[in-house]
């Protein structure tokens, strides 16, 4: 067992945080803790781990808009986006996604970066960011900063391009004049619900279609084949016409406690088709 098992480190700066990660790659970063600590009382083994608290790092806070780029510090919560009028005007897709996450308590604590690093295929923040061509910025004490497009970030279920000593420091999005933005989550209830199926879509003249799908594969999927089909042919006559593109994109849902594979396959095509009407 590790010497500082059961401890929590509270760095004052990002550099201190990265040094701590370098010194102990088993350290678990904590942002809003809304994923990490849900099962805390029962998960006794989690009590033996050591943690790195990022929640009070001012350097990770803040949202900036420049001519080209929008930057969300890794500490940005859903609520920060909901209440920022610039998103309401320019990227309502993120506001809509944020509003469906849990309820207000979760929205004020949970972070976009935590949603990315938690790597759930049913996440709501990830597909919305993916449809906006988000880039994940990672940093480590040893290698400095690297960037990975969010669409390439996931390698398999809960597998991602993040080294044990790396932290997500920020998320950037290209600034574009979208003419279409759409976020949909089909859940069992209207709030406090995890997606049975989710879809995020954008369109801009310069970039064409971007489509990300949740809860239909082991990872959040960017649907490049479907994007190409829409770019080339536009909306088809029936949702059934999406089948081969979606399959090529890796849509392969499973039966689980939230829904059935058959339901997900059918509904994913239907909601995309319907969104385009």
């Amino acid at each position: 067992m590790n010497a500082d098992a059961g401890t929590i480190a509270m760095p004052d700066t990002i550099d201190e945080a990265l040094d701590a990660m370098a010194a102990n790659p088993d350290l678990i970063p904590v942002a809003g803790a809304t994923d990490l600590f849900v099962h805390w009382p029962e998960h006794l083994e989690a009590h033996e781990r050591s943690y790195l608290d990022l929640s009070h790092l001012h350097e990770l806070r803040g949202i900036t808009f420049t001519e080209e780029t929008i930057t969300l510090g890794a500490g940005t919560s859903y609520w920060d986006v909901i209440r920022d009028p610039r998103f309401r005007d320019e990227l309502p897709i993120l506001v809509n996604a944020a509003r469906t996450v849990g309820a207000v308590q979760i929205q004020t604590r949970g972070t976009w970066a935590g949603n990315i690093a938690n790597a759930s295929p049913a996440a709501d923040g990830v597909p919305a960011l993916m449809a906006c061509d988000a880039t994940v910025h990672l940093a480590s004490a040893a290698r400095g900063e690297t960037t990975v497009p969010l669409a390439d970030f996931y390698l398999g279920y809960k597998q991602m391009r993040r080294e044990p000593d790396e932290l997500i420091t920020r998320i950037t999005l290209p600034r574009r004049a979208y003419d279409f933005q759409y976020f949909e989550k089909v859940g069992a209830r209207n709030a406090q619900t995890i997606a049975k199926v989710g879809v995020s879509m954008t369109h801009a003249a310069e970039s064409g279609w971007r489509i990300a799908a949740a809860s239909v594969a082991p990872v959040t999927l960017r649907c490049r084949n479907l994007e190409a089909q829409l770019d080339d042919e536009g909306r088809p006559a029936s949702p059934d016409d999406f089948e081969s593109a979606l399959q090529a994109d890796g849509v392969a849902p499973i039966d689980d406690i939230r829904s059935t594979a058959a339901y997900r396959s059918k509904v994913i095509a239907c909601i995309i088709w319907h969104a385009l009407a």
Partner: protein
Amino acid sequence: MADRTMPSRSPLPNRPMNDGIAMSDDANRLDGVAKVTGSAKYGRDVMPKNGVFVSFIRCPWGHAQARSIDEEAASAVAGVLEVEITGREGRYHGEPIGHIAAESLAALRRARSALNIEWDPEDADTEIGSPEASHDDDPDGADHVLEAVYTTPVQTHSSLETHGTSIDHMGDRAIIYASTQGTFSAREGMDRVLGMPQSRFKVVCEFVGGGFGSKLNGAGKEGLTAGRIAAKYGRPAWLFCDRAEEHLDTGNRPSSRTHVRIGYRDDGTIVGGSVRTWGGVGVAGGGGGVVMPSNRYDLGRIRKQHADVRFNGGGPRAFRAPGHPQGAFAEELMIDEVATATGRDPLELRMKLDREDERRSMYELGARLIGWKRRQPTGTQASVLRRGFGIGSTSWNRFPARADAEVVIHPDASVEVRTGSQDIGTGQRTAMAIVVARQLGVPLDVVHVSIGDSSLPAGPASGGSVTATNTSLAMLEAADNLKETFLERIAAQLGVVAGALKIREGDIMQDDRRMMTWQEACAALGSAVSGRGSRSRRSDRQYSGSGHSMGVQFVDLEVDSETGVIHLNRIVAIQSCGRVICRKTAESQIIGGVIQGLSFALFEDKLLDRNTGAMVNPNLEFYRIAGPADMPKIEPVLWEGNQTGIRPLGEPPTIPTAGAIACAVFNAVGSPVRDLPLRPDRVLDAIEGGRS
């Protein structure tokens, strides 16, 4: 300009306001502020100093034998007082096989994990399955026969305050803080485990965080185990379930399967047939009854058979109108299937089949309020969003139960209402205060209620919707007796005959003259006066009357035909309950019943893994209950028709909701979904099936 004052509630077009028909329109729950601020202390909140914490050791599989248990390691955990294993076989997920007692909750958790139990899982049965039904010959006189199977899942009570008991053991006496629906029945067996006569301990439950029938089992295994530990160590003891245990082992509404084979004529008349029902009772010996047919409708001669089916699951307990919602789901949907098959409007068919004239008037009102004329014939819509309308009906009998009451006027001008029976969240405390204030003729704010304490006058356990109906009769009698004594004593002081005095809004009046204020009169008493009453045949005759409660519910919803998701728009719930005591708490009972019914219809489902028999959703994340954002506009209508007697209200409003919703979904999509919950994938399958 005309003087216009704002109405206290914005008037809803097209419906009676429920105003002016209750004994009190405006009274708020007396304990409302205490509950929302947290100053109300529930049994679970009572953690006596120096207490011992206790928890059960439970089987994690549907059926398993514990091969090895490291009792030594668990006993060695710091703070652990004892580990006791009482058996090695678990027949369902959550069955206790022993307990641990420790100085803290953290020590309990550590000890549970240190037990390191190795289980040998065995085969487990997890559901009713598809038992064969041998139906009799088709009924005489039928033009057609409908054969269909309707199923409902296990629904857990999901009380927010979990089951358990906190015992303040003080050597030669004790206070039992129980989360119970029966203050008096919770004493049973406690004397034995405590080794104390009932005269040395009392049960206190001033607040109960939900029970819905599952807390009618006396002290329960939680209470008796805590009692045993408290007695053994001569210390306070605390044993409350956690959320998972609450789902696993504190009762449930059993699953049901209803197989009907019913004959009907071209005009929609139902001419009888056979109904076979099965109830999934887990390891219990019974309790799976399905109330189908309900007797509300004339369905001809029905041959009914029922069987309970055992499997590896926790047993059922009474659940708000036991057996009724699952039966009503099958019955209402069956009627709508007959209506559709014969081209009848389901409303018109119910007007014909229903046995009660009073309910026919309710259908007329409900149809108007919901806008029934906008309903389109079943299966005729092709749009993405499809509108559906549905109806359900309900009834509930009044059951007599023993109840005593006492009312005291204190010299400081306060009035104390004393009843030992409990307020399980229904508003009983508030209702009793209103009944007494009104009968005495004093303002509500001088009345205080002492409730939920077995040293107070005895009252019934809250099951069968008996609490308010019976206790209020005892209260009325107590208030009348008290008033008589009180006025005699005041009359003697004033030197007038007692019969000449009246109490009006607290003032002591002779004819129209105020003789004394309430404060003056009470101060003049010198000492407290009290009056007692009880529910008896006499008080029943004097204050109540016969009659049962009934109601109808109308649902307006939309189905998204692309996703199968159901959006409830409105539910109108018309309900009779005789004389309404408190408008707000009565409305709240109806709304709560509807919410529990719609949650049963759309979401709730205790899922047992087919392979292991373990419950896969023993939490409130995956065991879904309707949340605020899922609520339609629920419009409770207190029936103004027949208002004699104080009649039951707790259970009837939850009976018809699921059936009415299922009928509305059928209306919207054109094929019936015969299995609850009405999950989106099932709705889509129904739409697809209807197409082919």
